């Protein structure tokens, strides 16, 4: 197993280098490159620009620049935001919790509802329920998330008045209940896609497990169906879902971005859009790198957890 983990770690390091190379390339692709901030300032002579470029090390060979940038990336020096001169990492850090809370709550919904729908679909394969769940999942995956958010706001905030139309807290009210009330809408919208994906994978994972010998053995030795399904089948069917969680991280992050923009949820997605609006490239690039690193680490963690919980992995 340690060999497997080491190999997996090595792969992730290679990926990290590649991801950083892409990020570096994108910075230089940006209009004006890293100098954009200064070229837009009126009254800048080309001599000034050349001096700033020299100060920033932009006249050095690209590999040297990359190395310098990569070194800073690792030690957490991600530059300063154009907008308020705050360190990029601090700006991002202050927006991370809101996004994580949103992602975690919608993942919980997905795990609860998705597992139930998937297991039931697998146990009653080809039934009306299974059929409707399949179509439902496909439609859910086809709905534009941002539009679904608008529809939810229209139905639950405008028409019914049950939910607030956006934000995280009502002004002057900072209670947990108020927060939860604001969380329902965006969590529901983000959960739509995650539930659809989770239930589909749960269904096929459950189908795979229930066709295996040990489940038949459990049934044959007279265990109640309930025990067979929950203790034997479900426990094993849930294992590959750990990997799914890792694999779905980019989708979840993208979905969070979309949801946050509709519900003005103050997370990374909002920050990303605001920063693009202000052409605040350091923050934009920082967020891009941050999410990519998050995905990288998420995948690695999922694989390691899987190896930890599934003894069969240790064999190879």
């Amino acid at each position: 197993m340690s060999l497997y983990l080491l190999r997996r770690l090595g792969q992730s390091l290679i990926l990290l280098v590649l991801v950083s190379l892409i990020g570096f390339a994108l910075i230089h692709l940006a209009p004006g490159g890293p100098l954009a901030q200064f070229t837009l300032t009126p009254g800048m002579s080309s001599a000034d620009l050349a001096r700033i470029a020299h100060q920033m090390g932009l006249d050095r060979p690209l590999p040297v620049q990359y190395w310098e940038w990569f070194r800073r990336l690792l030690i957490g020096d991600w530059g300063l935001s154009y907008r308020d001169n705050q360190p990029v990492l601090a700006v991002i850090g202050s927006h991370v919790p809101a996004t994580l809370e949103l992602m975690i709550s919608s993942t919980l919904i997905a795990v609860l509802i998705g597992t139930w729908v998937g297991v039931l679909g697998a146990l009653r394969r080809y039934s009306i329920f299974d059929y409707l769940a399949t179509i439902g999942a496909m439609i859910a995956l086809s709905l534009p998330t941002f539009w679904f958010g608008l529809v939810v706001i229209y139905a639950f905030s405008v028409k019914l008045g049950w939910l607030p139309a956006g934000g995280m807290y009502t002004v002057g009210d900072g209670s947990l209940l108020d927060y939860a009330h604001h969380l329902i809408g965006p969590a529901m919208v983000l959960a739509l896609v995650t539930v659809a994906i989770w239930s589909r994978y749960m269904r096929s994972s459950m189908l795979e497990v229930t066709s295996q010998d040990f489940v038949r053995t459990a049934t044959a030795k007279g265990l109640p169906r309930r025990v067979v399904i929950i203790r034997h089948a479900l426990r094993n069917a849930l294992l590959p879902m750990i990997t799914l969680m890792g694999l779905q991280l980019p989708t979840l992050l993208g979905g969070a971005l979309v949801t946050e923009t509709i519900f003005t949820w103050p997370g990374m997605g909002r920050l990303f859009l605001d920063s693009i609006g202000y052409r605040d490239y350091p923050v934009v690039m920082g967020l891009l790198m941050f999410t990519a690193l998050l995905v990288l680490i998420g995948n690695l963690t999922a694989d390691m957890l899987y190896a930890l919980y599934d003894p069969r992995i240790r064999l190879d």
Partner: protein
Amino acid sequence: MTLASASTDAAVVPRRGGRGLRRFARHRLALIGACTIVFLILAAGIGPYINPYDDLHIDILHRFQPPFVGPHLLGTDQLGRDMLARLEMAGRISLTVGFAAMLLSIAFGTIVGMVAGFYGGLIGSVLMRLVDAVLCFPSIFLLLTLAAFVEPTLFTITVIIAATAWMEVSRLVEAQIRALRDRDFAVAAVALGASDRMIMFRELIPNAIAAVIVAATLNVARAILLESYISFLGYGIQPPVPSWGNMLNNAQEYLVSAPWLAIIPGAAITLAVTGFNFLGDGLRDALDPRLDVR
């Protein structure tokens, strides 16, 4: 897409009676999908010639007309423009971008996957690790970053959407080509002295085409979704050229007074995306035996 691996479970459990019902239902869904797409293409293609209203004609006196009551079938927007006419013209743009971005992403993804799968070794690993690396970036973040870099035109929007949608195709094609490369017919072609290019394009790709067609169909759906989102945010197709996404631009503002401004274009996007997803899923079922190359 994500349903891909979820629906390949058929081989795991022995078939039962319900399988027939399900196959039929799926094909009916595919048929519904195909009909929806044809309907949308026709509506966008010839609709504007039938509709008496012009999509750019501003009529302030008759703005915010609700749908289904007046002479404007789907109502009018905040400038009094006919919603149906706008929807049809927007359909032209959105569907065109969807198809064009699909073609680009499929072409690029297939070439990368083909080269990686055929040559393998160092070239293959480098290319496929690159694919892995690009996949680490959530596609919407990548797309919006690129959209902030470029001048938004029909062409650039199409290119950047394709730039964020080719990676899965590469993975798919690489796996197919790698499996096909060692099969007898490919080995025979090598023995006959066919050039690499000949083997790839004449022998391998035709045998992997089923998977590519399925991916292509699903990629249209995805491209339409991505276009609508960045246009909704104002970084995609620029007004006055309408797209389904940018019709939703100001919709949130009028959600209380004129909800149809938000609901109608969104329904069109949903219809198109669902249509392509249904069709792609049905195609995968129909082409299933050839998808399995092992």
